[in-house]
């Protein structure tokens, strides 16, 4: 049915998981969690733990159907029509998600780097690159993830300035928030963990499928720790008002960097960030392409071009601001549903197996 050559080794899995998770959300994270104020610094660790728990049903389900991806599993478990219907919804959701990721980043670029220009041109070049990466298949995406990780993550060094100017006493007291505030922070912030669930799609391509849980967990925790460092430094560096009101806190953290030979590190950081955005968007785009392939039951390169064109046009359409924000916000909730979805599939699988066993 599909080209099932196993091509992803352990490193590929680790970096695919963690790089897809870090998109624009790392830039926003301290702001997203601001409803719990200074106590937010340990939340990323809690999120990583939850993500790790959610990974268990996913990996179990996939190991039952080791040659199928989620689209194929839907069709086998839920029947052809229901399965295809759900696949279509999934594809629509992923398209909006890609659009939200790209648009979020390009808006940031417009605010910081290209104030006097529109983003249509840069967006076009961005999409050319995106299609190029995706057309190489999942292995090309994984390799791109590895290189982008090493090209960008060294910037964690720039946190040094935030630490020296910050105040570690902000970390106390530990649980200074109400349940309502914690709920709001989790609702807004847990989205930063979205991305590991893509393992449901590239599982068939992994060489050592038995070790997947370990490798994916490693990816989740690398990402969780990077989030934790960011949140902790932000808590030290900012006042609660700033956490709440500075839209891109990480950007302002880079702004604090002082070099005698370099003035605006934040602009460099933001432009380098394109690697993270590209790796996130390319993985999702690859999944969408696989989805279309499975619906039309044929592998075709033209699918990729058509989807990219649709997303490009979608981003360029000027929706009313309010509608767009609402739409992108809803996408977060869908992704939460999507993370829990494999649990239902596991139950259906067990029930079905029992029924067949009775027969």
């Amino acid at each position, binding site marked *: 049915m599909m080209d099932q050559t196993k091509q992803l080794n352990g490193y590929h899995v680790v970096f695919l998981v963690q790089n897809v998770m870090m998109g624009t959300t790392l830039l926003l994270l301290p702001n997203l969690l601001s409803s719990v104020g200074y106590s937010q610094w340990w939340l990323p660790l809690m999120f990583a733990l939850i993500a790790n728990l959610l990974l268990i049903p996913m990996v179990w389900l996939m190991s039952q159907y080791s040659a199928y991806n989620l689209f194929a599993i839907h069709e086998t478990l839920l029947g052809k029509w229901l399965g295809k219907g759900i696949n279509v919804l999934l594809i629509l959701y992923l398209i909006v998600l890609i659009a939200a990721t790209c648009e979020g980043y390009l808006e940031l670029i417009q605010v910081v780097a290209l104030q006097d220009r529109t983003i249509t041109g840069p967006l076009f070049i961005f999409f050319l690159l995106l299609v190029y990466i995706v057309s190489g298949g999942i292995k090309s995406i994984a390799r791109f993830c590895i290189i982008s990780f090493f090209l960008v993550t060294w910037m964690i060094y720039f946190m040094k300035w935030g630490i020296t100017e910050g105040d570690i006493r902000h970390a*106390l007291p530990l649980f200074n928030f109400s349940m309502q505030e914690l709920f709001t922070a989790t609702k807004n912030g847990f989205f930063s963990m979205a991305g590991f669930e893509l393992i449901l799609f590239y599982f068939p391509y992994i060489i050592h499928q038995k070790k997947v849980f370990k490798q994916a967990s490693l990816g989740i925790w690398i990402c969780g720790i990077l989030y934790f460092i960011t949140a902790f430094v932000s808590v030290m560096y900012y*006042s609660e008002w700033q956490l709440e009101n500075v839209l891109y806190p990480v950007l302002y953290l880079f*702004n*604090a960097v002082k070099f005698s030979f370099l*003035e605006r590190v934040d602009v460099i950081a933001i432009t380098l960030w394109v690697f993270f955005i590209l790796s996130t968007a390319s993985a999702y785009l690859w999944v969408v392409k696989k989805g279309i392939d499975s619906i039309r039951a044929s592998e075709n390169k033209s699918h990729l071009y058509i989807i990219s064109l649709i997303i490009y046009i979608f981003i360029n359409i000027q929706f009313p601001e309010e509608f767009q924000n609402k739409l992108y916000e809803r996408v977060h909730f869908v992704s939460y549903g999507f993370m829990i979805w494999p649990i239902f599939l596991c139950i259906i699988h067990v029930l079905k197996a029992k029924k067949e066993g009775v027969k």
Partner: protein
Amino acid sequence: MKQSIVILLISCSLLLIGCTEESKRTSIEDLGMVSSIAFDVANDKEMKMTVSVPHPTTELPKNTQTYSVDTQLIQEGLVKVSSQADKMIILNQLRTLLFSEELARNGKVAEVIEHFYRNSTVGNNVRIAIVKDRAEDFLKAEFPDKPNIDTYLNDLLQPAHHTSFSPFTTLHDFQYSESNPIYFSMTPYLELEKESFKIASVALFDRGKMLDTISTKEALIVQALIGKGKLPPLAIKLDEPSDKEQLQIQLVKNKVKITGNRNIEAPKLKIALNLQGTLYEYKGDKDLGKIKEYKELETEVSKYVKKDVEDVIKKLQELEVDPVGFSEYFRMYHKGRWTEELSKKIMVSGDFKVTVDFKLLNTGALK
């Protein structure tokens, strides 16, 4: 087939190049990069904004251009400046913001700073200072031995050892302390002298309004209490009226330990200041070769600094401001929201116990 399409694409794009718009990018010579801005009170409603733009060519006798406009909004002011200037005014190289004391006392500073903090083209390391009299005079001042006022001003406001009594406030620092209920902002306070500027004292703020200034010596104590490791040299006159014993101490190390009793209703704070320094200069009749007299000097200095610290705390209590952040030691253990009222309460009703331990490391290379 494929080849012909590629050739067609290339030839089309070659022909289309002629249709591109003329490049909108401006070259660096066409940009007027604002380096400093000074704010004064113009009238009841408006501020007077003076912008200084360094000129790249050195043929002119004066290499900085200044423009002044009256305006209510900052961005509006910049647009007005652009219509006077021969170049495109941009803020990417902004280094210094000066405010006149009158404007600061009116409480306008916080508003202006929030505007610049929001603007992402402005870096967060822009230095802020309050100045005596009119701020525009500072940008328009001419000193024959200093070629460029902007560079001079910028260098003066950069952290340096001998002026480290000054808080060297940046845009981020001011916004941080303004928005944090624990802290009260401080900025350097400049005065214009005959042929130079001078960091004369430190201005204290209470929620965006300038309250008062404290002397450089008091500011040094505040920096010591904040826990700054490197402090400027300390001049001490031991028996005040006679001036018999005078010393100058180079402070090598400063350690401060503050503990609060966690009780907001009856706050008690213990401050233990641990100073180490070397003797730079000594005028007096002690023989420092003898251990007893050496120790005596140490205790005398400790006593002297202790009194200074107590005086500064008393002054801050009277002004009801807390630039040190004493209330952080209570917020750390406080469940729920912390407010400015609580900070003020801690400061005003706090019972401060100060101990100072001064260690003299050596007395120089001569016997």
